[in-house]
């Protein structure tokens, strides 16, 4: 699938021309935005490859790659569903300008167990959560729940969301405002350290504070905001890509986990069957032939089913095209590579504009 994001130059120019909001007097809803980086997978959780046919198997790397995106996307939908937060985005890289950034590691992921290590920090350096979450799979489906946020590890995600809400609840409006202000200043610091370093202070405990604010009509701030808007353009593309990936892979991934559970059960029953393998039908009779053929047929269907799973996991990212003003930028590689490339382009654009 070719993904194209074409943005009219006028819209961008509008972004460039718009006046910066008065940082200290922003009246935007004080629901902090949350950025979730794609997760890392602990190397110890690799499961052996599942062979579909000779030389053809579902690679554990493909499943791991899926999980590093699937789990943060599911978390994103769960957080969004609360309505207590602003925009929730999944990003290929950590965002130094995020209001609240969630990083995660998958410590264990099997058909029956999920164990995650999460760290959520806001732009002031306040730690919202830093701990492990674990749970066992409970296959339950609620008819009232949205299909996208159904998962066998609902309890794990519910616990994370509860902890995030608990971290948000005590923050007063001034603290929430400070989170938003610092996120922009820190974004600026990443682009032009020499200009933004003076605005940000640090407490002895290592927390960031707003030392002073740029003027309301500071042209530097205007440019930084415009650049960030452009970054959001790409993030929206990424978001759409991850959403599509999630929607495509969710049924495949769900089937995969179900298959792994069944496989574990079948291994036990097969051992039992082999120990007492006798057919109730006379050898050579129609029913005996049927029984043998149906067993074989079942195994073949299972191979086919695994093959389809394998195709689902082999989902690859297509190049992204973004049009900015008169230039069309074609980004290739993984989304992580594209995001790095896009950030480089934005930095170069910024330097060009400020010469």
């Amino acid at each position: 699938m070719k993904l194209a994001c074409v943005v009219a130059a006028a819209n961008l120019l509008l972004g460039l021309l718009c006046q910066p909001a008065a940082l200290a007097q922003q009246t935007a809803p004080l629901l902090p935005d949350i950025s979730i980086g794609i997760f890392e997978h602990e190397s110890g959780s690799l499961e052996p490859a599942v062979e579909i046919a000779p030389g053809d198997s579902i690679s554990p790397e493909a499943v791991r790659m899926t999980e590093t995106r699937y789990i943060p996307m599911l978390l994103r939908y769960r957080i969004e569903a609360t309505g207590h937060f602003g925009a929730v985005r999944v990003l290929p890289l950590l965002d130094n300008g995020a209001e609240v950034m969630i990083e995660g590691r998958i410590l264990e992921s099997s058909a029956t167990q999920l164990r995650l290590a999460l760290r959520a920090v806001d732009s002031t350096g306040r730690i919202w959560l830093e701990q492990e979450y674990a749970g066992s799979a409970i296959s339950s489906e609620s008819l009232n729940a949205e299909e996208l946020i159904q998962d066998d590890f609902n309890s794990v995600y519910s616990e994370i969301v509860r902890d995030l809400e608990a971290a948000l609840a005590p923050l007063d409006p001034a603290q929430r405002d400070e989170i938003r202000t610092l996120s922009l200043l820190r974004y600026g610091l990443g682009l032009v350290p020499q200009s933004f370093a003076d605005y940000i202070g640090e407490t002895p405990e290592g927390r960031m504070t707003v030392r002073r604010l740029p003027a309301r009509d500071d042209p530097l701030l205007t440019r930084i905001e415009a650049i960030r808007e452009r970054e959001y353009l790409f993030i929206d593309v990424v978001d759409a890509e991850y959403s599509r990936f999630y929607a495509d892979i969710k049924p495949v991934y769900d089937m995969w986990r179900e298959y792994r559970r069944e496989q574990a059960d079948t291994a036990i029953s097969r051992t039992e069957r082999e120990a007492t393998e006798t057919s109730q039908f006379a050898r050579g009779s129609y029913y005996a032939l049927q029984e043998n053929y149906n067993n074989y047929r079942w195994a073949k269907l299972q191979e086919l089913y695994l093959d389809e799973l394998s195709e689902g996991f082999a989902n690859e990212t297509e190049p992204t095209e973004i049009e900015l003003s008169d230039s069309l930028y074609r980004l290739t590689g993984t989304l992580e590579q594209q995001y790095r490339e896009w950030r480089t382009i934005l930095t170069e654009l910024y330097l060009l504009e400020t010469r």
Partner: protein
Amino acid sequence: MPEFFAFSRAFSCALALLSAVLLTACSSRPEPAPAEAPLRAATQPDLSGHWEKNYQLSDDFNNRFSLYIADIQRRFTAAQSRTELQVLGAMPGSISNDAINGLARFAEELTRMPLLEVEQDAKGIKVERENDFTLRCNYKDRLYTSSTNAFGADLCGWNEQRMLFQMSMGGGLGITHQFSLSADGSMLDLTTTVSSDAVATPLIVRNVYQRYEPPEQDYNCILTLTRSTVCSQRGTPK
């Protein structure tokens, strides 16, 4: 064409090896498959397309079964006179009517397959069949390939211009599907051989398929493990 003879010999050897393996594989657990053959040389016919059974050109099963029974009786009589019963039947001194009828009934059901859809490229071939699993052969650059699972083993590949799928299952059941294309490419011949170790003579059924253009379908149907054929409406917006 010496290369074809060499190829045929290689395939026959592989089949013989597989048969030997299957004898043990199906009675207990699967054994390793025989070594795979080297690169195939000839360009193979393209069997791709949608095929529907031509009943006029295909075997009438009742006729085929009558001929089969007549053949068994003829061979039985001849063998009886030569006291070679062991060669013919698993039960010396008699013919198992249950086994013959069972084999015939099973073969009749197996070979109904009114429609086939074949996809083929340089790497492999897929034959989708109604209400049965898809026959797949990932021959890539090989003459044939083999695999085993808990319930049997199979060998598939090109034997000259014919595509062969040979399967062997528990209980001494063996099935070979042999596909070949007519010279003008309009007909697909499918010869199926069904054998059982309870009956000395295999039953061979020949069906002929002709190309057809499938109508645009409103439903997309797939064969699933647990729910047999499941259909969903095409074009449903996401």
